[in-house]
């Protein structure tokens, strides 16, 4: 696999190298609480400035009004508003997006290579095309509809009719979000169903029987390395690959890649008692050697809790296997470990799974002066496959959550901005929410980025100063650093507000033939959506409450 799915840290942890880390939920409370406090203080100040002596009374009145609105939410009214929003979007011809989708599917085959010969790699392209087309068509429609909904109502003064009814403003915001999400869901469900049928029809029966349309369920472990002397090491050797995803171990030395799998018991085995270990290692040959066979590796199971001698843990090494580069290969290992002629046999679960339920597997390269490259997801325990539609449905769920998030953000933005501006703001938040931009911001905030902050980088550009050269040590530069650090702290806050959208892209799993993992993708996306729903809806409500609706 060419990516490494990492679970979202929910609460906190004590990392051996990084130290104490707060998880997503406490950070959410800190940021949301901080923002609520700022809003509270700014409102209080503005009320006291505008109403002077009567400020306290006005503020208390507003606050009690808000609490009363919150307490008297009516699902019936919200449902009615959502229904009206749905109908409005329908009348605005939101469903005409199906025409574009139909055109794409009709002509996609022209641009996606030879349909006579569908390989596993091509299946990947088909699946990612469908999921990408579905999300790229649904999201802009929802974005534009949501951004222009409330501003258009204000412009046409139709919102006056609504607000004079018993409907609360919070209900208006919620009704809008639900209504637009519903229309997005209808579009998404239809498109993804058609897309599913298209994938299944495009892929021939021969390919299906080869198991290329699959949904593997992996159990990943933690990877660590031993260097050529056998000492623990963070990484293996870099063989000059531009992409530093994989680290390499040298053959016929003490270099090893060691995986630690957790929560392993008999449920990890199949009905015949086999453990399915799927691997996909990279080969690097320092000389060509014997080209008629691939490089060899073996697995070694280790249990230090059952020593066979002083400093000698119980081990069992499997037969040598040839690697299948760029292609996963499943090794079935029977729980009865032993070779022909061996008197003593071991049980994989009873003898090698430790008391805490973890299983240690070491991989070594057998060929001298040759190298094997590996990353964490390159070896996993493969549990029985799920039907393909389950993975596909989860990927569609990812797009659905994204639709809801876009609806929430765009409706909120439209409560205090005009349609085009709300569209641009939401679009920018979506662009900034990508993995690459978050990585960039992390580097900037974490001080890893060469060239300094805002003022320092301007100074370096103007004076043609190399980013590695130290700045002069004088009060002006100290001030500049101080200013930059304030801005960087502000960027930290902005970074917390910008959604992390990498979890929502689940098509990568499905197109690579994997099930979408709950902890690494579905749960984080769900939490991010919920995390934005509550503050955004409240922000939209307050904005609509304090907004002068006469102003177009």
């Amino acid at each position, binding site marked *: 696999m060419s990516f490494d799915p990492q679970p979202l840290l929910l609460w906190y942890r004590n990392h051996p190298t990084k130290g104490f880390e707060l998880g997503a939920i406490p950070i959410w409370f800190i940021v949301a609480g901080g923002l609520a406090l700022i809003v509270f203080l700014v409102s209080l100040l503005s009320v006291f400035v505008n109403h002077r002596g009567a400020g306290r009374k006005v503020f208390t009145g507003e606050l009690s009004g808000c609490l009363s609105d919150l307490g008297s939410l009516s699902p019936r009214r919200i449902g009615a508003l959502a229904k009206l929003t749905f109908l409005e979007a329908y009348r605005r011809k939101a469903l005409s997006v199906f025409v574009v989708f139909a055109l794409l599917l009709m002509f996609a085959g022209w641009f996606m290579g030879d349909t006579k010969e569908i390989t596993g790699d091509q299946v990947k392209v088909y699946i*990612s095309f469908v999921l990408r087309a579905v999300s790229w068509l649904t999201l802009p429609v929802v974005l534009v509809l949501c951004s222009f909904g409330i501003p258009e109502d204000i412009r046409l003064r139709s919102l006056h009719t609504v607000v004079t009814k018993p409907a609360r403003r919070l209900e208006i915001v919620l009704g809008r979000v639900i209504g637009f999400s519903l229309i997005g869901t209808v579009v998404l469900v239809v498109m993804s169903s058609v897309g599913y049928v298209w994938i299944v029809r495009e892929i021939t029966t021969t390919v299906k029987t080869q198991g290329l349309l699959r949904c593997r369920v992996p159990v990943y472990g933690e990877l660590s390395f031993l260097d050529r002397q056998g000492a623990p090491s963070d990484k293996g050797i870099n063989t000059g690959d531009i992409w530093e995803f994989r680290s390499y171990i040298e053959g016929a030395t003490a270099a090893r890649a060691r995986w630690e799998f957790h929560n392993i018991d008999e449920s990890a085995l199949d009905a015949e008692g086999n453990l399915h270990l799927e691997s996909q290692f990279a080969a690097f040959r320092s000389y060509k050697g014997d*080209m008629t066979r691939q490089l060899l590796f073996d697995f070694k199971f280790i249990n230090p809790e059952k020593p066979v001698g002083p400093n000698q843990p119980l081990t069992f090494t499997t037969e040598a296997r040839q690697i299948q580069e*760029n292609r996963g290969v499943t090794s079935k290992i029977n729980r009865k470990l032993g070779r022909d002629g061996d008197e003593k046999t071991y049980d994989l679960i009873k003898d090698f799974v430790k008391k805490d339920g973890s299983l240690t597997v070491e991989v070594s390269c057998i060929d001298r002066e040759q190298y094997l490259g590996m990353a964490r997801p390159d070896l996993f325990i493969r549990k029985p496959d799920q039907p393909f539609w389950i993975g596909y449905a989860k990927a569609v769920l990812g797009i659905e959550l994204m639709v809801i998030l876009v609806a929430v953000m765009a409706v909120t933005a439209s409560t205090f901005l005009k349609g085009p501006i709300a569209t641009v703001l939401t679009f920018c938040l979506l662009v900034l929410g990508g993995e690459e931009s978050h990585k960039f911001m992390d580097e900037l905030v974490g001080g890893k980025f060469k060239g300094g902050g805002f003022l320092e980088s301007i100074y370096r550009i103007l004076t043609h100063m190399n980013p590695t050269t130290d700045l002069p040590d004088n009060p002006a530069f100290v001030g500049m650093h101080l200013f930059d650090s304030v801005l960087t702290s502000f960027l930290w806050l902005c970074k917390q507000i910008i959604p992390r959208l990498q979890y929502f892209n689940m098509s990568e799993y499905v197109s690579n033939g994997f099930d979408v993992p709950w902890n690494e993708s579905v749960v984080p996306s769900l939490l991010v959506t919920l995390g934005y729903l509550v503050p955004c809806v409240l922000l939209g409500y307050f904005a609509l409450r304090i907004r002068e609706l006469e102003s177009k």
Partner: protein
Amino acid sequence: MNNMTTAQTRKLTYLGGIVLLLIPIIWLGLPSDGTPGSGGTLARLRSNYDLGESDLGNVDPSSAAMNLVLLGMRGVAVNLLWIEVDKQKDMKRWAEMQAVTESIVRLQPHYEKVWDFNGWNLASNTSAEWDAVPDRYYWVKAGGKFLKRGVERNRKSTHLQYHVANLLQKKLGISDEAKQYRKFFLHDPDPKFNGGVDPEFNPDGLDSYLAAKKAAEIACEMEKFREQHILDRSLFRAMPARCQFDYAMVLQKDGKFGEETREAWQEALNEWTQKYGKEYFKVPVGVGEEFFDIQMEMDRDDIKQSAKSPDDVVKIARAVESYRRMVNYYYWRTRGNCEADRETSEAHRDFYEATQFYRKQELEKAKASAFAGMQKFESILRKKGYEDLKDEDTLVEECLLGIMVWQDIHRISSESVPEEFPLKWLVQLRQENPSTMQNVARSFKRLFLDD
């Protein structure tokens, strides 16, 4: 009423203007009905300069549709796709890379460098990223097929046709995996071909060198109409004959020494001296860049006939000599003559059999065969006209390997190597060249490794 008249007049004026403008547009852009000289000015110009889609090569409707849909944004889209391809290559996402490459060639179907670069990328860079030789071959094939499609889309491209020939000759014939690749070219490892050829890659079921020769011949034919800028013309047009030489050499390497191999050498010699040697090349001579027509097989009388003055005789003779040296003309002529000789063929067979017997540890037979080979090569290399072959590395290494086997058998049998033996002078001559001796030692070690 007055207003109505004014509006009507204005509309009629516009209509008149439209009709007037349509006349030059129709005159310029009238489509051709297929007969020569028909159609508007643009259609005729397109036909005269062979710029129509169908003149350039196969028409791909999806490519035309994509270009049309992008309006003027083709350049931007292509740039983004190139960035994407580069990123996918770094991240080893081969399927996606291939798909994006397809999109690029759809947007730039007549940009030859795009086909050339991506064909090379698939055949050389991508194939090298796979460990198993059948996997490597799959990507070499993908590159080759890609280039062939490039030729179909650009039928007049001499360059692309040359690259097809070059891939077949060098990638399949000279790479480290050449032995397996050449075998796969005739017996594809993909089970769907049932051990036969991949008809898309090797439609005629030829040996890779003969397929390369055929492709090179087509490139030479195309070169007559559209010049190439890859090699000097004398080197470019030598390619078919060189492929035939390679074919003959590889037959020997595969242990085939019968009539088939001798005929292959004879054909190579004929191609070299009768066909290539008789071709005319317009070459610049002297400071004034005066151009003369020369042939590789020109003798003194031919030169005198084509020269206008005694001074020109000297100039042309110098040019002929210089070009012969550049294309290694003498060497290949001598080698061809020598190898087409039955005695040489037998000498090669003796050495080959010696190594085979040696591997089977049939030492007496190996010793006799090696000695026979040494004697025959002694006689060949002493012949007048073949003296230059003592400088030819492949041949010399073959002789030295035969001698090494012969000497080793003496050592194993606890016999002393005779003081004098055939080709002793060659051993002494080449002992000063460490790289030759290293190559021979390596080949000797590998005798028991290669199948």
